[in-house]
């Protein structure tokens, strides 16, 4: 039950990244980092407690959203979900991320929430998390010791736990440049528009004509973190993506996932529909 009342804490509002990382070096695990606040503040109205809250609201220039056909997409720490939705370049080149961003939360939440915040929340229900895992990406972490990069494949250690160290600030996310044959998509199942997903799936397919050269398949809400589906990726690799292959994919999903019962859905339901959701996501990405 939410108390709807925020506990006591001190707020720290650094004016630039060097001050922010010095702050984290000093306060470390005693300081929660807050960008949009749409996860942190909700959790603090429940039972999350912290002596310090470090807000990124005072730092200019962390809201970058830049696309370069050679280098790919750069997303800053305070880049909002709304900025993603408003970007024709993201819609064209990273449809999975755009589709996920378009349904995350509500318009008001999208105006405050951030992509990197979604990743650092490390919830398996994260919509942008699912899309980023499918697309591939690198999170850049900065501290007083310098910069470190973590692949999205290595970011989530367990539910709510990431590879970010307490003295590190996530400053940007880089998504790789899409190729000529790159397709991506995202779908989810939910009760109403605002609810967290009960199941979500995202795919990135690199195609040579009708043949899938490589696939990255991500699914949320079926384990403690968003997960890749390597066994299913292997089914697709090197194959023409036709109805027979899609049927094999659909039938193979149940054996690769471990959903639980929670307030949004049941393990039984998730197991029953996950394969269908993945198949539809692939079809959506390829527009077939």
């Amino acid at each position, binding site marked *: 039950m*939410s108390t*709807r*009342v*925020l*506990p*006591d*804490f*001190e*707020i720290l*509002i650094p004016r630039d990244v060097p001050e922010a990382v010095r702050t984290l070096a000093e306060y470390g695990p005693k300081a929660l980092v807050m960008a949009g*606040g*749409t996860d942190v*503040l*909700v959790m603090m*109205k429940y039972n999350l407690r912290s002596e310090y*809250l470090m*807000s990124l*609201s*005072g730092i200019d220039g962390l809201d970058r959203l830049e696309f370069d056909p050679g280098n790919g997409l750069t997303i800053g720490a305070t880049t909002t979900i*709304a900025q993603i939705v408003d970007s024709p370049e993201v819609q064209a080149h990273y449809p999975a991320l755009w589709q996920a961003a378009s349904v995350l*939360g*509500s*318009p*008001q*939440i999208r*105006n*405050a929430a951030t992509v990197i915040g979604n990743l650092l929340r490390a919830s398996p229900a994260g919509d942008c998390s699912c899309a980023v895992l499918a697309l591939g990406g690198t999170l850049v972490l900065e501290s007083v010791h310098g910069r470190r990069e973590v692949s999205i494949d290595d970011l989530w250690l367990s539910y709510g736990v990431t590879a970010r160290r307490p003295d590190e600030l996530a400053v940007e996310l880089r998504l790789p440049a899409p190729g000529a044959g790159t397709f991506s998509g995202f779908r989810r199942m939910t009760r109403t*528009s*605002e609810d967290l997903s009960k199941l979500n799936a995202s795919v990135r397919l690199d195609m040579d004509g009708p043949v899938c050269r490589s696939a990255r398949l991500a699914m949320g809400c079926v384990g403690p973190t968003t997960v890749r589906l390597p066994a299913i990726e292997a089914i697709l690799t090197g194959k023409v993506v036709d109805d027979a292959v899609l049927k094999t994919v659909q039938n193979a999903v149940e054996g690769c996932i471990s959903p639980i019962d929670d307030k949004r859905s049941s393990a039984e339901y998730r197991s029953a529909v996950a394969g269908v959701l993945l198949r539809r996501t692939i079809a959506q990405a390829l527009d077939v």
Partner: protein
Amino acid sequence: MKKREICLHVNGERHILTVAANTTLLHALREDLNFTETKYGCGTGECGACTVLVDGTKAILACMTLAATMDGKHITTTAGLARDGKLHPVQQAFVDESGIQCGYCTPGMVMKTVSILARNPNPSEAEIRHGLEGNICRCTGYAKIVKSVQRAAELMADESKAAE
């Protein structure tokens, strides 16, 4: 807990106030500045009754925003919409179309509508319903709220034409 002084520009007026770290923007608006038309609904960012606009027409949830992070920002609440005693077209539309029953969701709905129409002056019904996500109404079943948004779009288009 330490307090800090912040400056909020609300509906065009500058206010200096002292807030705690955990003071929400909603609390500051309602309790410190008396903008009680901005409603407290759920307190957890789900109902939209606390919707205000920042940086022009960007809709945010005041209950999910810390006042301390809003230092220097320009905020618009429902009280800031009318001009010289004349209702804003969005407000007038809600009156004309009876888009109000108990009225509790209405300030949030009105602010959201201003935000929708600023981006999309002629939205389809589907676009209106998608835009209204995040604002919950217990009374109306949304039909007359959707009509109010459509009427507001008409009124604002008429105003633009008259101004040309």
